């Protein structure tokens, strides 16, 4: 989702494990949390770095599509809400980089990998925000999908990640409610506003479904991640849950989900729905989405333009430390 394509190998069978690995797996099976200083398999550490790193990058890049409308927010109150929301996302990025740092990698290293394209962020942030209704759609659908994935991760096996998720989930559900409130105002507004709300749903529906990652039928190996409890549900389970939760909300708003095949299936007590266009998904992940270059370009520019600022602060801090030591 915010980490859509973190591949791990198939889960190891107990007889393939070393004594240490078996003990580690047993702790996870008992529901114990793994803490930074404790022994962990190298692959567990590497997978978590990729997953938490992707998640952190998604928060930071995710500031951009919504940031696009801050200066055009239509009322002082909406502007304050949006500013605070985008600020929260920066805070989420910060917690997550800190969580990743407990695994022995620095924030600067992670950021360098984002900028070089070695690490990814969620595909959803490569779609443009074209009208004010999109800000509602992002809160409602994108934060909604994020919550779907992150609530179970509050119970994941790695302590710092699980605790970061607890803090983050509280704020995400706030974002989702605000987004829903915004889009309901649009959906019940003037004909033009209604049209914007419907158009936003049309454009964000399938990209939101893509947030959960490829279908379980595809060969993305997540068995090991599930055995380690750093992935709790399968992609398709979460996608189904999201659809089941969101469709009634769309109906309540008087909006139409852009899917002819969407229908309630009484037998499975869930909706049948169309899969997103996975070719489009892979294109976006590869770098060919509508906004990939702009998004990454904006992040790289902010980082490079800010180099003198960070260097200046560091130089002053070093001088101050030097002066203190000389005085002692």
């Amino acid at each position, binding site marked *: 989702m915010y980490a859509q394509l973190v591949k791990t190998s198939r889960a190891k069978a107990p007889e393939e494990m070393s004594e240490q690995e078996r003990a580690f797996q047993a702790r996870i099976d008992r529901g114990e949390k793994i803490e930074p200083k404790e022994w962990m398999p190298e692959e567990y550490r590497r997978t978590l770095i990729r997953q938490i790193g992707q998640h952190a990058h998604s928060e*930071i890049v995710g*500031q*951009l599509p919504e*940031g696009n409308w*801050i*200066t*055009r*927010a*239509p*009322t*002082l*109150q*909406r*502007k*304050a809400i949006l*500013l*605070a929301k*985008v*600020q929260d996302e*920066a*805070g989420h*990025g*910060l917690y997550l*980089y800190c969580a990743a740092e407990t695994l022995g990698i620095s924030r600067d290293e992670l950021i360098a990998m984002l900028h070089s394209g070695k690490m990814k962020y969620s595909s959803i942030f490569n779609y443009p925000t074209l009208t*004010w209704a999109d800000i509602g759609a992002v809160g409602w659908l994108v934060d909604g999908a994020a919550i779907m994935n992150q609530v179970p991760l509050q119970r994941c096996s790695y302590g710092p990640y699980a605790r970061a998720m607890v803090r983050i989930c509280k704020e995400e559900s706030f974002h989702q409610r605000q987004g829903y409130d915004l889009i309901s*105002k649009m959906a019940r*507004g*003037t004909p*033009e*506003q209604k049209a914007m709300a419907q158009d936003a749903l049309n454009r964000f529906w399938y990209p939101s479904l893509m947030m959960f990652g490829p279908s379980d039928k595809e060969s993305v190996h997540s068995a090991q991640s599930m055995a380690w409890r750093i992935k709790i549900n399968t992609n398709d389970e979460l996608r189904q849950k999201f659809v089941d939760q969101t469709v009634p909300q769309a109906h309540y708003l008087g909006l139409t989900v852009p899917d002819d095949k969407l229908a309630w299936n009484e037998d499975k007590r869930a909706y049948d729905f169309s899969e997103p266009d996975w070719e489009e998904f892979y294109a976006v992940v590869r770098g060919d989405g509508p906004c990939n270059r702009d998004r990454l370009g*904006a992040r790289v*520019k*902010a*980082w490079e*333009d*800010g*180099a*003198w*600022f*960070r*260097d*200046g*602060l*560091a*130089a*002053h*801090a070093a*001088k101050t430390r030097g002066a203190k030591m000389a005085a002692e």
Partner: protein
Amino acid sequence: MTDDRCEYALRLGDNALILSHRLSEWCGHAPALEEDIALTNVALDLLGQAQLWLELAGAREGRSADDLAYRRDAGAFRNALLVERPNGDYGHTLMRQYLFDAWHIEALSALSRSRDAGFAEIAAKAEKEAAYHVERSAELVVALGDGTHESHARMQAALDALWPYAGELFLGDALDARLAAEGVVPAATSLRAAWDASTGAVFAQATLTPPASAFAHKGGRAGRHSEALGPLLAQMQFLQRAYPDATW
């Protein structure tokens, strides 16, 4: 509320509104995550203050803070020219902030003792926020002035460029004199000595030299703005102007 008081509240509200807007342009693009978060805090504080001052300013005519923010043209805005200056590099943004904050804290502390209870109440709340703002911006001006060659050069360039916009904050006019005589606001000129002292100390520590010239651009309070304000308003007011019948 008298006309005079409405007009003065408008000045304070517009300063906060326009500066907040400028800061919000950085959101998502600041040089470090911690900075992004801290700068947005300042933007949010100022936005909250703008809302309070504009509500006060519009109450008599039954205009909401939103009406005032989104339905006035540039000539009706009463902010000082300093706050509408474009962001420039991050050093410019911080220098603009410091010059403003150092004035703001003096103005608000005097206003918190206003004879007008409405003014005093808003100012007292805003003063607490401004105290944090000026502490932060002063610290950054010192650190960057005294950082690397490049950071020093950028901060000096920012000070040189923005200095001519600081003087307007201290220019008195007839309105200011009338309200000062009533004990509602401090006389604009009365804030200068404290500002000179605090900024002088900070610039010395930052190894920065304020320009010798006392020349000051002026006109903001009379609605004569720079070219920078129009595009800012065009963006800020777009939705309200394009869809005047909508509620948001």
